[in-house]
C-alpha cells in the first residue's frame, strides 16, 4: 500500500493517483465495521471540528457526512445556506474566512458553483472536502460507488461500467469516470443527445465510449450506474417530457439481460422511480442502491479521518489499525479499533 498519502484537501478525483484512491478505499473498508456495532462511535476525531457547509439542498450527503463525523467523535456543525440569500449578503470567501477564524479542522462544502471548494482551499487552513460542486466533481460519491463495486466484484480492474442519463450536468459522472478509469475499469455512457456531449469521449486519456443508445452502452456491462434526471431539464428543452425520457432512457428489466451475468445496478439518489429507473430494478436483487448509502458513511469517515484526523499530521498515511503509525499512536489506535 502507498506510504505517500499526501492530501491536504479532497477537491476532486481527477487529481488523485490510483494509490491515493486505493488507500482511501482501504481505509473506508476498515471503518465499515464501526457502523455495524452496537456502540457506533470511536474517538478518532475527538476534539476536532468539522463544519458541513451546504449551499445546496441535500439530505443524504449532508446526513452522511454528519454521521461520519459523529461516529468519529468529531464536533460536527451543520450550516445550510440558500444560495439566494448569499447573493444578497456576504461572499463565499468572507463566509469561509469567518468560519476559518473559528479554527475548524475540516470544512465540508457543497455548492452549486463548480470550483467553489477550490476557492475555499485557497484561503483556508482547514482541510476542504468537496461534497459536490456544480457539474464539476463529487469525489466522495465516486469513492462510495467504488467501495460498493469492490465489495461485490472484489476489484475494479477490467470491469465494464455503463453510466446512463444526464452526463452533461453530472458531477457524479465526472468523478466516477476519473476514478473508474484510474483503477482500470472501462466506461461507456449513454443518454439523450442533448445531455451526452460527444466530447465526453475525450474526458480522460483512456477514452470513454459514448453511445447513442442505452442498449449499446449496457451490453456486457458489469455495473450499470443510473444518474438522476432533473425535472428542470425538461423546461430547459433538453428532452420533451418525463414520459418520453422514461420510455427511451429509463432503465428497465429488459436492459439487464444485455448486461454481463451478475451485473449490478447503482444510483446516487435521490431516485425518480419510474423515470430513470423502474421500481422492479430499484428494489430488485441487482440493486445496490442502499449499500451505496451505507458505504457512503464509511467513505466519509475515511476522508475525514485522513484529512482532519491523526492521518493528516505529517502527510504520511496511517491506517486506523495504526500499522504505520508512531508507537503511541499504534497503541491508541489499537485500543480504538481492535
Amino acid at each position, binding site marked *: 500500500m502507498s506510504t505517500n498519502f499526501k492530501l491536504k484537501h479532497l477537491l476532486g478525483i481527477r487529481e488523485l493517483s490510483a494509490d491515493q484512491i486505493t488507500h482511501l478505499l482501504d481505509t473506508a473498508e476498515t471503518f465499515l465495521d464501526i457502523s455495524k456495532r452496537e456502540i457506533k462511535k470511536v474517538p478518532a476525531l475527538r476534539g476536532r471540528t468539522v463544519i458541513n457547509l451546504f449551499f445546496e439542498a441535500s439530505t443524504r450527503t449532508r446526513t452522511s457526512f454528519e454521521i461520519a463525523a459523529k461516529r468519529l467523535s468529531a464536533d460536527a456543525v451543520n450550516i445550510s445556506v440558500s444560495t439566494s440569500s448569499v447573493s444578497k449578503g456576504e461572499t463565499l470567501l468572507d463566509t469561509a474566512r469567518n468560519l476559518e477564524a473559528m479554527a475548524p479542522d475540516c470544512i465540508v462544502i457543497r455548492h452549486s458553483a463548480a470550483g467553489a471548494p477550490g476557492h475555499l482551499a485557497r484561503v483556508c487552513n482547514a482541510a476542504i472536502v468537496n461534497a459536490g460542486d456544480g457539474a464539476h466533481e463529487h469525489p466522495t460519491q465516486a469513492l462510495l460507488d467504488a467501495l460498493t463495486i469492490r465489495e461485490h466484484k472484489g476489484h475494479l480492474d477490467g470491469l465494464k461500467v455503463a453510466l446512463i442519463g444526464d452526463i452533461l450536468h453530472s458531477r457524479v459522472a465526472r468523478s466516477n469516470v476519473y476514478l473508474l478509469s484510474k483503477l482500470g475499469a472501462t466506461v461507456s455512457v449513454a443518454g439523450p443527445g442533448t445531455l451526452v456531449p460527444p466530447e465526453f469521449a475525450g*474526458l480522460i486519456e483512456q477514452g470513454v465510449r459514448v453511445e447513442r443508445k442505452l442498449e449499446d452502452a449496457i451490453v456486457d456491462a458489469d455495473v450499470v450506474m443510473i444518474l438522476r434526471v432533473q425535472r428542470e431539464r425538461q423546461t430547459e428543452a433538453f428532452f420533451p417530457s418525463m414520459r418520453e425520457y422514461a420510455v427511451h432512457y429509463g432503465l428497465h428489466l429488459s436492459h439487464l439481460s444485455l448486461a454481463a451475468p451478475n451485473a449490478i445496478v447503482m444510483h446516487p439518489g435521490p431516485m425518480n422511480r419510474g423515470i430513470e429507473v423502474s421500481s422492479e430494478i430499484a428494489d430488485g436483487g441487482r440493486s445496490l442502491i442502499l449499500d451505496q448509502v451505507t458505504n457512503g458513511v464509511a467513505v466519509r469517515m475515511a476522508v475525514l479521518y485522513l484529512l482532519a484526523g491523526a492521518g493528516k499530521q505529517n502527510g504520511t498515511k496511517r491506517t486506523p489499525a495504526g500499522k504505520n503509525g508512531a508507537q503511541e499512536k499504534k497503541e491508541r489506535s489499537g485500543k480504538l479499533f481492535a
Partner: protein
Amino acid sequence: MRLLIANGYVIDPAQGTNTGKNLLIEDGRLVGLSSHSDGVPEGAEVFDATGLVVAPGFIDMHVHLREPGHEYKETIASGAAAAVAGGFTTVCAMPNTDPINDNAAVTRFVIEQAARAGLASVFPIGAITKNSDGTELAEMGEMKDAGIVAVSDDGRPVPTAGMMRRAMEYARGFDLPVIDHCEDKSLARGGMMHEGHWSLVLGLRGVPAAAEEVDAERNCLLAELTGARVHLAHVSTRGAIEAVRRAKEKGLPVTCEVAPHHWTLTDEAVSDYDTNTKMSPPLRSQDHIDALLEGLRDGTVDAIATDHAPHHADEKELEYDQAPFGIVGLETAVGLAMERLVNQGVISLERLVELCSTNPARILNLEERGTLRAGARADLTILDPELAWTFEVSRSKSKSRNTPFDGFTFRGAAVATLVGGRIVYLHPDYTRVIESHRAGTFVS
C-alpha cells in the same frame, strides 16, 4: 514649441515609411522627417530615440472606462492613464456605462471628462439602441454631432437580424461603423467559458464557438444587404475569422479586431477557476488561436483591441459562475503583441503598427491620427523592441487589478507616449534604456 524625436526608427504604414529618421514636431503637429545626420532645427528640444521605434500613436478601439456609473472600477482619468502607460494615445470608450451612452448628453460628458484628464484622447462609442435593449434605435445623429465615432451595443448584442438591419441602414447615413459583439445569447445560454474539453472537465457551462459565428455570419450577410460599415469586435473563433475573410473577398466593408488575451491563452487557463480567465468571448482552444494568428498574419484581422474591462477585486473574488466577465488589458497589449506576435515571427513590426494605429484610425475615420504625415497630430507611440520587462499589476495605473498576466515577462515595450506633442508617459527606465541602445545599434 519644437521637439525633435531624434535617432529613432520611424514606421508609418500609412505612408509606407520604414526607415531611420528624425521626426520634428511643432506646436503639437508633425512637421516632417529628416535624416539622422541632419542637425537639430533651431530652438528644438531633442528627445533621443536611439534604438527605438517611432510609430503613429496606438489606438485601442475597444475599452470600457466605466464612467459614468462604475467609477469604483475605473474612471476616464484612470483609464486614460493606463492607456498612455500601455502605449495608447487614443482609446474608444464603449457605451455600457450607467447611464448607457445612448444620447448626446452622455457623449458630451465622456468627452469633457477625457479633456479634464488630459492624457489619452478618448472617443466615445454610442449605443446602437436605446438603453442597449435592442428594440429602438438610439439617437445616432445627435451623438455623432457630439463626438461618437462608432455605434455598438457591446455586451448586449443586438438580438435580432431585423433590428440589426435597421441599425446598419441608419448608421450608414452618418458613416458610422456598426461594431457588434457577436454572441447569439440563445446559444451561449449563460455559458461562462469556451465549450469543449475543459468546460466538460471543469463542469462550467460552455459557450460554443458557434454562438459567435452565427452572429458573425449574420452581420456579414447584413453588411452585404445594407452596405453599412460593419466591424466585428474581439473575434475569437476560426469560423468568425473565416466569415470576415469571405466578406473581404467579396469586397464588403467588414472589418474586425482581435484581443491579446485571445491569442495568448487557451481555455486550459481556466482550469484552476481563476476568475481572471473569465471574459466574453471566452478563451478558446488552440485551433481557434491558430486561426486568429493566421488572420493577424494574412490581413483578415484589421485591428488589435484590448476590450479593457476593469472590475473591482471584490467582484472578481466571487465564485467563477458569479464573477463578471472581462479583464484589464491596456498595459499588457503591446507586451503580448511583441512577445507572442512580433518576436514569434507571426507579424512584422510594421504590421503591428498597422493593426494598432493605421487601421483603427481608418475604420473610425480619425483623419488626423494613425499616420505620421506632415500636419497630423503629434500622437506617437515609441517602442523599445528589445526591452525585457515583467508586468506587475500592483503598479498598474488602472483602478482595477483583474488580469491573468500578472508576472508575465515580455520582450518589447512602449517606452514613451506622446499625445498632441506632449510626453504623457515615459518609461521609468528610459534613461538607462537609451544609454544601452547608444552602446549598440538597433537592427530592425
